[in-house]
């Protein structure tokens, strides 16, 4: 080709057209942004919200149900002239509210475009009916069915959890599943089973034009999707027991956890103070108030608080001693108001017979006895160093579910704390002995346990050596739970050693006050209650009151742990609360002879 002017022009022509074709190729083939935009553009998705799954208790009582409510949606650009006062009357709102909203839409009209806006949330069916009759007068306004949670039982906000609209941060990472305005379970059971409860949104697709006028159903509804209602959840909770627990804990700070030992099912789980269920449905309105409360109602103490377990931990030390062979049921140790150690220091104890063996030591909760036990565990000649002995002990403790997460299906479970030998090596620069950490003998010191873990200990003892991972969701037609909840979790202690401990716990309750039993207040005629008190020293104030128990002694049906903060001696507060739970669960009512206990508990409010 000679470079004549004609050819130069032709080459130029083809270059320009190639640029054009290249650009078209780019937007049609390479970049698929425009295809996505196209479907957003022309298809109008009318979402149909599913009803959220109902939450049942173990006996079929509804813990959380649904009420129908309506949202009013408005597409500002479709709104014509309308009678503000009539709309205000129909919706039961002030005309100023409407003016304010409309002014807002006008101000941000370019940003809003043709997007429908939520004008008013959660109006009642009665209001909706009034609105529906006059809807034709208000072009651009529409009602959308939503559901609102309702709570027939006061089962405690921390257990049930609440739902609220997804926030912007969450949407950034979950934009496939959630859209603005969707609800999501935030805490408790609502969060634990969000995937089952939420159901699937349905939608109807319409084609619309650039003025957002809906033209007709897309492909005759071939791609429409019906909403799939959320799955119903059956929990292990006993609604009446749960509500009773809430009542008992009214005005007290602490937790009560009840577990069915034979299955690991959580029967009740009370964290006090909690969020009143009346606030749950519309938590946003009360959020300020709740978060300002100094007792932190949002903090679910049952699974998040880490307390020293106190004397109930003696059970574990006793069991480890038996299993390691450094303690025998016949061995007796003296206790004269405590255990002397170091430079004439003494870990004190209360008055009881001395010397005494394991059984009585548990019944009387003797501090001195368990100091000997723990000393022997750590100074066991089988291990070369105290570190090795300590780590073995720690391994035992962990096998009871302490110092780690139990793996429950309840969200935000924490693991508590059991220190390691390395930890002591670090803070004492390897110079530490039994005496340094003597408080671990009686469940004080660096040990942290959640009330759920403490309740699990009660269940483990009740089962004589194993537990099921505590859980709150039951298998049902719609939802099945992980197989792990059906597997026995054995501790490292041989099962045969548990009988002595059970007997000791039985004695503590039923041995009578004169014999030094610490938990005689928990005795319930006809029920062979076994229990163990604890009084955990609290660096921040009055001692914490702890009690674990289970009943009946043989084939136990319920194990309970109660933990009351700053309430003093375990037998005084935690013990009656836990025993009332037992009695309520097994007998269904409180016997007249113990009515006064209930009255005392219910009438006492610490705050």
């Amino acid at each position, binding site marked *: 080709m000679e470079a004549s*002017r*004609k050819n130069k*022009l*032709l080459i*130029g*022509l*083809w270059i*320009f*057209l190639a*640029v*054009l*074709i290249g*650009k*078209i*190729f780019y*937007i*049609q*083939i390479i*970049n*698929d*942004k*425009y*295809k996505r*935009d*196209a*479907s957003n*553009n*022309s*298809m109008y998705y009318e979402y149909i919200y599913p009803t959220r799954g109902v939450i049942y208790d173990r006996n079929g009582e509804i813990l959380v149900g649904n009420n129908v409510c309506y949202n009013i949606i408005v597409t500002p650009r479709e709104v014509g002239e309308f009678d503000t006062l009539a709309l205000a009357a129909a919706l039961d709102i002030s005309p100023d509210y409407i003016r304010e909203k409309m002014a807002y839409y006008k101000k941000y009209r*370019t940003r809003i*475009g043709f997007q429908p806006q939520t004008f008013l949330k959660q109006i009642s069916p009665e209001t909706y009916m009034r609105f529906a009759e006059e809807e034709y007068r208000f072009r651009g306004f529409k009602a959308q069915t939503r559901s609102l949670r309702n709570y027939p039982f006061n089962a405690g906000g921390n257990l049930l959890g609440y739902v609220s609209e997804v926030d912007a941060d969450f949407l950034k990472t979950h934009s496939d599943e959630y859209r603005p305005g969707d609800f999501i379970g935030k805490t408790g059971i609502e969060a634990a089973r969000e995937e089952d409860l939420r159901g699937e949104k349905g939608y109807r697709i319409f*084609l*619309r*034009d*650039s*003025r957002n006028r809906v*033209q007709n159903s897309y492909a005759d509804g071939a791609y429409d999707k019906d909403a799939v209602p959320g799955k119903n959840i059956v929990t292990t909770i006993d609604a009446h027991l749960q509500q009773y627990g809430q009542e008992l804990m009214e005005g007290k700070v602490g937790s009560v956890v009840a577990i069915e030992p034979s299955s690991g099912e959580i029967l009740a789980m009370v964290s006090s103070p909690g969020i009143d269920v009346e606030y749950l449905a519309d938590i946003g309105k009360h959020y300020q108030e709740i978060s300002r409360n100094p007792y932190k109602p949002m903090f679910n103490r049952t699974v998040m608080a880490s307390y020293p377990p106190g004397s109930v931990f003696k059970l574990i030390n006793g069991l480890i001693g038996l299993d390691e062979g450094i303690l025998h049921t016949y061995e007796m140790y003296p206790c004269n108001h405590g255990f002397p150690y170091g430079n004439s220091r003494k870990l004190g104890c209360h008055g009881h017979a001395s010397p005494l063996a394991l059984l009585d030591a548990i019944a009387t909760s003797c501090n001195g006895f368990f100091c000997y036990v723990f000393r022997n565990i750590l100074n066991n000649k089988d291990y070369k160093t105290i570190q090795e002995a300590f780590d073995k002990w720690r391994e035992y403790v962990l096998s009871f579910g302490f110092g780690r997460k139990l793996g429950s299906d309840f969200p935000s479970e924490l693991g508590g704390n059991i220190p390691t030998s390395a930890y002591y090596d670090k803070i004492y620069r390897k110079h530490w002995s039994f005496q340094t950490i003597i408080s671990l003998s009686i469940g004080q010191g660096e040990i942290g346990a959640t009330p759920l873990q403490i309740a699990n200990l009660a269940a483990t003892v009740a089962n004589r050596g194993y537990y099921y991972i505590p859980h709150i969701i039951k298998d049902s037609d719609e939802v099945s739970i992980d197989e792990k909840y059906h597997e026995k979790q054995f501790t490292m202690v041989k099962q045969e050693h548990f009988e002595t401990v059970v007997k000791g716990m039985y004695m503590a309750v039923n041995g009578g006050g004169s014999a030094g039993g610490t938990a005689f207040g928990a005795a319930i005629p006809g029920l062979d209650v076994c229990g163990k008190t604890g009084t955990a020293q609290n660096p921040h104030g009055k001692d914490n009151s702890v009690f674990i128990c289970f009943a009946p002694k043989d084939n136990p049906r319920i194990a309970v742990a109660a933990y009351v903060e700053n309430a003093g001696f375990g037998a005084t507060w935690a013990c009656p609360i836990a025993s009332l739970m037992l009695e309520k669960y097994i007998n269904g009512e409180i016997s007249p002879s113990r009515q006064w206990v209930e009255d005392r508990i219910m009438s006492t409010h610490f705050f």
Partner: protein
Amino acid sequence: MNMFEGQSTIRRDLRRSIDWPLIFCYLALVLIGWVSIYASIHSSEPGSILDWNCRSGKQAVWILTAFVLDILILFVINPRLWEVISAPAYLFVLGLLVAVIFLGVEVKGSRSWFALGPVRFQPAEISKITTSMLLAMVMSKPYYKISNRKYFLITAGIIFLPMLVILGESETGSALVYVGFLFALYREGLSGWFPFFLGMAILLFIVTLTTNVWISMAIIAATTGVVLWIFFKSTERESRIVRFRIIRNTILSVIAGVSLVFATNFIFQNVLQDHQRKRIEVLLGMKEDPSGVGYNVIQSKIAIGSGGLFGKGFLNGTQTAYGFVPEQSTDFIFCTVGEETGFIGCLTVILLYAFMITRIIQDADRSREAFTRIYGYCLASCLFMHLFINIGMTVGLMPVIGIPLPLLSYGGSSLWAFSVMIFIFVALYKEEKKYF
């Protein structure tokens, strides 16, 4: 026998002398346009494609009448006529262009349409033809030389007169098409510096707007350096006078370039009208305005982009059918093609144009008559300008400038004008073939 012989000669003549492939492209594009117009309006104006009440029906009438015009031009009117009437026709249309400012009806802010009863027509469309004819007539004179200052000024005047009047009607797009005559002039010996300086001016304008003055300065410096270097290499043996001229011209060019760069912002802010400024800002990505000026372009790109390789199928477009794209049967008709027939369809349409323009250029160049050649180049230039500006606008390469896509867009004036313009060329070419 004689009679049959005569017929076969005529038939051979027709086969030889008429550029049938060119006519095939013309027919194909007109039909694609008609069908696309139907596709773009069928949901908002339901009816059959021939329904007189909707645009596809009206376009059918325009098409048929255009065919009548085509046949008249091809077989009835003596092609020699065009050269003869070019001067009076030019003046007449110029008169119409001026008259429309006072007598026309206002459509979207510009007075460029005459309303004759139900029919509206735009003199600017015809002005392209008369300007081409006059250019061809003047430049084909044996004594004409574009490097002669007098003739150069006459030529420039022929182009600028209608162009300025059209600008006065604020039909920027139609005026811009006249820049395309530069290509025809280039073919006829205009110095290559003109396209070069034009290209540089556009480049500097854009660079200054999107980045800053200093980058433009750097570009001027670099280009000057390269140009000077090439010149001194190739003119080593030339006289001092020649070299002096080179230096003088270079200095003048640099001064012009620098002034342009510094004037850019002033021109942009004060000379351009508001809507023009906004369109350029959106095109250059200086501002995002998805609901305002950018809306058309975004919607148009979405429509075309969503077509993919094969498109959504005839009448299955959602973007164009549901009115997302404005002016979809006129200026944005290419969106319908892009959405419903995809990349394959776009490629087909562009290749049809490309083939048509190439064909015209080749025919023109081969022509022995200067009038035919120059007219052909003018025609090719106009087609190219329309094509590039229009499709460039729909895919976001050019600012939003409202000019129709030749033969495809809805509208009688445009279709008639291009049909006449193309068939005058075909007739001229046929006339020539008769004798050679």
